[in-house]
């Protein structure tokens, strides 16, 4: 693919017109058009600006092979989907490069679904949740540790971006960067927990639902299965039943405030807890919806720290970037860009790592 074609492709991927690019880069639109038609070539500094606006790495313009076209599964797309998707993929690529340069690729693959048969319904989704909880060692309160385990042990690249009021979450799986999840920075902690579990389902079942063949839209059924999986994963049956029994009085009644405490324990919303109870206790849907409406009113009056404004960059990404910079594998300016900090701030990280001697194990 020629440079001209790559320039055109990158611009189309972010959905910008030549005029818009000209405004953002200060490069005349007639020049941009000439670059895209192969009539003239940009300078490297101009390409660098274009790469920034198109959310691709500068090397994208010089690679010999056409990069893999990534499938990104969205749950409620944000208003500026194309631009956000391009940014998400760029971050994934950057993260993966940091893993390569630091020699710290995540060792473990997410569990496979090989032993599930042809049929995959709600029962299987619940079974999968149980198995994942066990394999990942998530314990009685999975919501507390899911994020860290996915990031640190399985190397899932989890980013938080502002997806506005419309966007919920997205995920992608690629042979280039592995597994990745995008969450809405604007959502509260327990909502993001649910979204994380929901997107995990898509990653686990990526091949089963043929997303590797380019299917970009999850079906309605798939979405319902993902929700079922998320509820089962974050609210395991036995601990939830135990928590509810302990909090109920002798007449088997339980107050909303106690249920709220249980939801906090599991790091989920009251609404999620009510839906879980709906299935565990076989409630009528009408009744459950009434409870949820009451819970929403109650939640508005109570203050619950919402863990808002999580950092865009995952901890592991930051740690890898610092390590790679200290190893002298990237320049100061690139490090500053990757961490979204100033050059001066970046200089603070220049100190060398300290090596500690550990005793050799006795033979």
């Amino acid at each position, binding site marked *: 693919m020629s440079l001209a074609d790559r320039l055109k492709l990158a611009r189309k991927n972010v959905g910008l017109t030549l005029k818009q690019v000209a405004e953002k880069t200060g490069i005349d639109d007639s020049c941009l058009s000439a670059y895209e038609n192969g009539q003239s070539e940009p*300078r490297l500094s101009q390409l660098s600006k274009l790469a920034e606006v198109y959310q691709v790495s500068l090397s994208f313009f*010089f690679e010999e092979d056409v990069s893999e076209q990534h499938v990104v599964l969205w749950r409620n797309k944000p208003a500026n989907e194309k631009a956000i998707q391009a940014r998400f993929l760029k971050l994934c690529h950057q993260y993966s490069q940091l893993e*390569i340069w630091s020699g710290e690729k995540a060792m473990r693959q997410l569990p496979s679904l090989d032993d599930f048969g042809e049929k995959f319904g709600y029962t299987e989704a619940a079974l999968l949740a149980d198995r994942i909880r066990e394999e990942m060692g998530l314990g009685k309160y999975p919501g507390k540790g899911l994020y860290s385990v996915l990031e640190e042990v399985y190397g899932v690249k989890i980013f938080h971006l502002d997806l506005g009021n419309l966007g919920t979450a997205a995920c992608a799986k690629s042979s280039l960067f592995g597994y990745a999840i995008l969450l809405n920075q604007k959502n509260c902690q327990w909502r993001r927990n649910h979204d994380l579990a929901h997107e995990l389902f898509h990653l686990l079942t990526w091949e089963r639902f043929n997303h590797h063949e380019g299917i970009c839209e999850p079906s309605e059924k798939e979405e319902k299965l993902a929700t079922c999986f998320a509820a089962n994963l974050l609210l395991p049956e036995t601990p939830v039943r135990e928590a509810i029994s302990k909090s109920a009085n002798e007449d088997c009644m339980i107050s909303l405030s106690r249920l709220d405490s249980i939801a906090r324990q599991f790091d989920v919303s009251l609404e999620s807890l009510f839906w879980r109870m709906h299935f565990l206790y076989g409630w009528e849907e009408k009744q459950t919806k009434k409870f949820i409406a009451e819970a929403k009113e109650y939640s508005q009056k109570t203050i619950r720290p919402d863990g808002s404004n999580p950092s865009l960059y995952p901890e592991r990404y930051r740690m890898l970037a610092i390590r790679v910079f200290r190893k002298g*594998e990237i320049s*100061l300016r690139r490090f500053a860009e990757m961490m979204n900090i100033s*050059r001066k701030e970046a200089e603070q990280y220049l100190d060398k790592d300290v090596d500690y001697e550990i005793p050799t194990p006795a033979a």
Partner: protein
Amino acid sequence: MKFPLLLLDANIVIYLHELRIWESFITQCMVTITQAVAKESDYWEDENGFHSPIELDSDIRTGKIDCIDVPLAIVEAFLKKYGPVYLERLDPGEAESLAFLFHSKDKWLFTSADEIVFKVLGAAGRFEQGISLEEILQKIGLSRPGLKVQFTKQFRLNTAKKGQFDGITDFEGGK
């Protein structure tokens, strides 16, 4: 006689402004920068965090420094040999300067404060074409005490050796 054939990286241009010796420096050295380095040398920051713009245009216009336009084909040739990934590890200005240096038949010297630049030079067997700012300042009589570590001779020697003897991650692998 001026210190000859010297390519500067943007972090050097910026630091010379911070040390407030840019003017003296360019009267004693034949300074050349690439277009990308000129663009990257945008501002310098004083001790109080105050930003001042760096104006290189008049120095270029009056011939006090040279600004070279490196054709993309030369950058492509460099990337073909060492892998496009270097554009993700180096600043565009560094990549452009290295591409020019590797292409040129003249014995240019390149000064930078980034370890990766000295590693690339070392790994390409061009160890002697890297020079630290400290060494140049010593040679032209502008030595300053307490230079930041990345501008010192020791820093260059340590990192160039790493590139030369240990190899650097993925060098010539193009990964």
